[in-house]
């Protein structure tokens, strides 16, 4: 049987069929997290700390417990005794502490107790009956202040081995990397610019609040339904936090109403299970929007210092960056990622980057689309833009001159395989947008962006039916149409129509461990596993044909959905279509399935270049985005329309982050803007159409050349927009978001 591992000619891949779950989603039938109920179900609600930092002296729940509508109350004592360990090593402890506070409430919104009652209203009412005595402690929410010597300590002993001596205990991880000699590099430069930048925390802003329905019996067996990006991590974490065996908890992922990294951990799920265990009934919990903002993962806020040296011809001689990221009251802020991504697009002789993970009295940060990368790109690409302005150089030419390519030693260590950055820059240069005239008051900005992409543990099964149709079971929740991509890839291998394949997101009892839908990994890793599972089934189909023809199996090949003799010497037989083989499979050896599991390592890094035009109103400071073009390498676009959608969605989120979105804390450490009216994400009338160009430089690590596309699209926008606004306003913007008051202040400072 001859099967080429690499493929470049496609029948199904690259077409744009309707998604398989389209009908359910336009008719209201699709079941999301909050859409499930169970007989005898109770409703849970969570009591949250109003203080940014406080010792919990006493919790008196007796009045709530005595109420006839209340069936259970839980506090930290109702969870397992997970051991504390420093840094990310103790992530189960960190998650537990975040899910339900222990000795201290660590941020405004931190859960301290929960109730289950006979209705959602009764549960909410019962929260008012729980009395909590707090001893309020000094708090800190700003990253620079949290590192200062006099900052209140969030938790002693949280720092891991990487942190140098003498740092404040709120600094919990430290990263340093690079190569060459930056000082020598700066000495060679004709111009060195050093500048500092700040970004505020933003929220992933998925429209579906967290929701779950859990049932856990006294026998330690449980069922959980929830909206999540990865139900195996939910299974594993809930089991650890509740002290039950992982396999005894079956988790089913609902349809998911957006995640962007924010649904890669647990918040309410262990609480619903703990309540259920106590009440002996299923418990449903649905977060309010304000709970989502106050208590689920925003991204980190950042404070950054950048120094870059350049020659008159645009050659970068050295680059250095210090990135301080605040990730809430727990270790995990991706200061290391920010540092590693910041200079990754460039081929640098001398580079050094330092990242800090800093704790403050804010909610535990969660991943948000290329976590850490957008802020670093904002700082670095702003300085590059300023260097180009001062040296009178074209910003695309300068990036092309310094662009990383195959064989470049990356700023963060490895040597790149085939990558597509140069192709995106060339496409930018050739794009009509780049040469279109600007109106007065408008500015243009460009930026490159990088993201690693991820493989991750992956397991896929495929089973053929007697009628020749196929079912594929994947373990990665479908956030943006991935079932369509899986079906296209399976169709490509099997040679049967896309419509004859049904892809299901299997529950945790039906497949082995699958890593979360994150790291832009789904089309890459579940796609690779789907292809290999389909090939596994094809091997068996060929075996059946070989047996029928009485020839060796390597004399059979698979072509256009049929077993055919591999060459003239194999014999003269008519092709047997897949459905003819499956029709007989019960009699020729039994069911035909394919399976694949692995941790694929060849995710293939990804680059993009964005072009933005912005118009700044000098009277009001309001910025309008007038034109936007995303150019990004997809390796191979399986379903190009959904690839475009990822590019557009990333750009739109970046526009919100750049211009408007921010967590605003009062002096009391309380979040001031915990509803969508005050935390305003871009609406339809804020945005222009977002043009896309899909560059395809195949990833050597995927059979069809796929690179993940989900995350890279949010890396360039902050910088590209800041460069456009700075060029329009004639003043360098160093702080995000560039809200009207900040722009007015910058214009005023500039005279």
């Amino acid at each position, binding site marked *: 049987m001859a099967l080429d591992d690499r493929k470049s000619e496609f029948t199904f891949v690259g077409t744009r069929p309707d998604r398989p779950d389209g009908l359910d989603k*336009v*008719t*209201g*039938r699709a079941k999301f997290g909050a859409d499930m109920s169970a007989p005898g179900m109770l409703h849970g609600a969570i009591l949250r700390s109003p203080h940014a930092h406080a010792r919990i002296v006493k919790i008196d729940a007796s009045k709530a417990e005595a109420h006839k509508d209340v069936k259970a109350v839980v506090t930290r004592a109702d969870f397992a005794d997970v051991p504390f360990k420093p840094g990310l090593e103790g992530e189960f402890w960190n998650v537990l502490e975040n899910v339900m506070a222990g000795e201290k409430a660590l941020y405004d919104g931190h859960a301290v107790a929960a109730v289950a009652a006979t209705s959602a209203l009764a549960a909410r009412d019962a929260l008012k009956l729980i009395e909590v005595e707090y001893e309020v402690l000094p708090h800190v929410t700003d990253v620079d202040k949290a590192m200062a010597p006099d900052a209140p300590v969030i938790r002693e002993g949280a720092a891991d081995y990487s942190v140098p001596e003498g740092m404040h205990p709120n600094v919990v991880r430290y990263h340093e990397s690079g190569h060459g000699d930056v000082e020598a590099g700066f000495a060679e430069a004709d111009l060195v610019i050093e500048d500092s930048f700040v970004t505020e925390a933003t929220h992933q802003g998925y429209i579906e609040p967290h929701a779950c329905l859990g049932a856990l019996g006294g026998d330690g067996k449980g069922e959980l339904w929830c909206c999540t990006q990865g139900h195996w991590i939910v299974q594993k974490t809930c089991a650890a936090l509740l002290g039950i065996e992982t396999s005894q908890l079956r988790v089913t992922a609902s349809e998911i109403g957006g995640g962007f990294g924010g649904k890669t951990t647990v918040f309410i799920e262990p609480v619903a299970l703990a309540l259920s265990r106590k009440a002996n009934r299923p418990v449903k919990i649905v977060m*309010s929007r304000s709970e989502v903002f106050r208590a689920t993962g925003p991204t980190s806020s950042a404070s950054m210092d950048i120094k870059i040296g350049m020659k008159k011809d645009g050659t970068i001689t050295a680059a250095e960056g210090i990135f301080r990221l605040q990730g809430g009251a727990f270790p995990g802020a991706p200061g290391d990622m920010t540092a590693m991504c910041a200079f990754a697009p460039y081929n640098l002789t001398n580079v050094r980057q330092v990242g800090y993970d800093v704790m403050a009295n804010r909610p535990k940060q969660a991943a948000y689309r290329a976590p850490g990368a957008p802020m670093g790109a904002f700082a670095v690409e702003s300085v590059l833009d300023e260097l180009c302005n001062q040296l009178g150089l074209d910003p695309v030419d300068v990036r092309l001159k310094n662009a990383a390519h195959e064989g470049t030693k990356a700023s963060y260590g490895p040597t790149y395989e085939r990558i597509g950055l140069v192709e995106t820059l060339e496409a930018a240069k050739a794009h009509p947008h780049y040469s279109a005239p600007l109106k007065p008051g408008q500015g243009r900005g460009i930026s490159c962006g990088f993201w690693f992409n991820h493989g991750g543990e992956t397991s896929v099964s495929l089973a053929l039916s007697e009628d020749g149709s196929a079912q594929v079971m994947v373990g990665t929740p479908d956030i943006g149409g991935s079932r369509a991509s899986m079906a296209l890839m399976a169709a490509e291998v099997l040679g049967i129509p896309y419509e004859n394949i049904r892809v299901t997101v299997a529950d945790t009892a039906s497949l082995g461990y699958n890593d979360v839908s994150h790291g832009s990994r789904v089309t890459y890793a579940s796609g690779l596993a789907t292809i290999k599972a389909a090939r596994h089934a094809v091997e068996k189909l060929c075996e059946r044909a070989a047996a029928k023809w009485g020839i060796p199996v390597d004399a059979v090949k698979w072509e256009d959905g049929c077993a055919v003799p591999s060459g003239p010497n194999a014999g003269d037989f008519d092709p047997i279509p897949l459905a003819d083989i499956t029709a007989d499979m019960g009699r020729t050896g039994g069911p035909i399935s394919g399976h694949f599991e692995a941790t694929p390592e060849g995710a293939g890094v990804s680059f993009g270049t964005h072009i933005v035009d912005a118009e700044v109103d000098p009277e009001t400071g309001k910025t309008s985005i007038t034109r936007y073009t995303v150019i990004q390498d997809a390796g191979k676009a399986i379903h190009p329309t959904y690839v475009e959608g990822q590019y557009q969605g990333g750009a739109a989120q970046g526009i919100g982050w750049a211009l408007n979105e921010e967590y605003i804390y009062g002096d009391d450490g309380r979040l001031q803007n915990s509803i969508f009216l005050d935390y305003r994400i871009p609406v*339809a009338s804020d945005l222009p159409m977002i043009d896309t160009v899909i560059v395809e430089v195949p990833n050597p690590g995927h059979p069809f050349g796929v690179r993940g596309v989900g995350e890279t699209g949010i890396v360039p926008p902050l910088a590209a927009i800041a460069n456009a606004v700075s060029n329009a306003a004639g003043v360098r913007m160093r702080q995000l978001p560039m809200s009207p008051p900040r722009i007015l202040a910058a214009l005023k400072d500039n005279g």
Partner: protein
Amino acid sequence: MSKLHVSTTVNGDPVEYLCDPRETLLDCLRDKLNLTGAKEGCGTGDCGACSVTVDGRLVCSCLMLGVEAEGKEIETVEGIADGDVLHPLQKKMIEYAALQCGICTPGILVAAKSLLEKNPNPTEEETRYWLAGNLCRCTGYDKIIRAVMDTAAEMREAS
């Protein structure tokens, strides 16, 4: 608090429910009538995921009380298709991939249908402003706006 009895019409069907006076129309649709198509994205009238029409008027069902539905005609996303025949807007949303996660889709469909009933020939700007109350975090709106405008064009041609 004792519950109130409400008789109303949803997608043409007469229905009744008992509700607490504090419960919203959205709560009643979802929890009492099991019509979970309308979603709660915010509960404060800011996201439009709960959009329905009441006597032909577009409203956020999270901002209206269940008891206020007495005697009204409610239309939800579940009533947009005609049996198994999808409304042109539903078809175009799928064709344009104007949904990624799809949580905003029910609200967008109800709102867009209401737009096209009032204005069969909206400009891009009119479409963007009409849908400004419907948040979508996934798509950047590009494909949604295109799907709605293309539907409008197709429906004009057909009529």
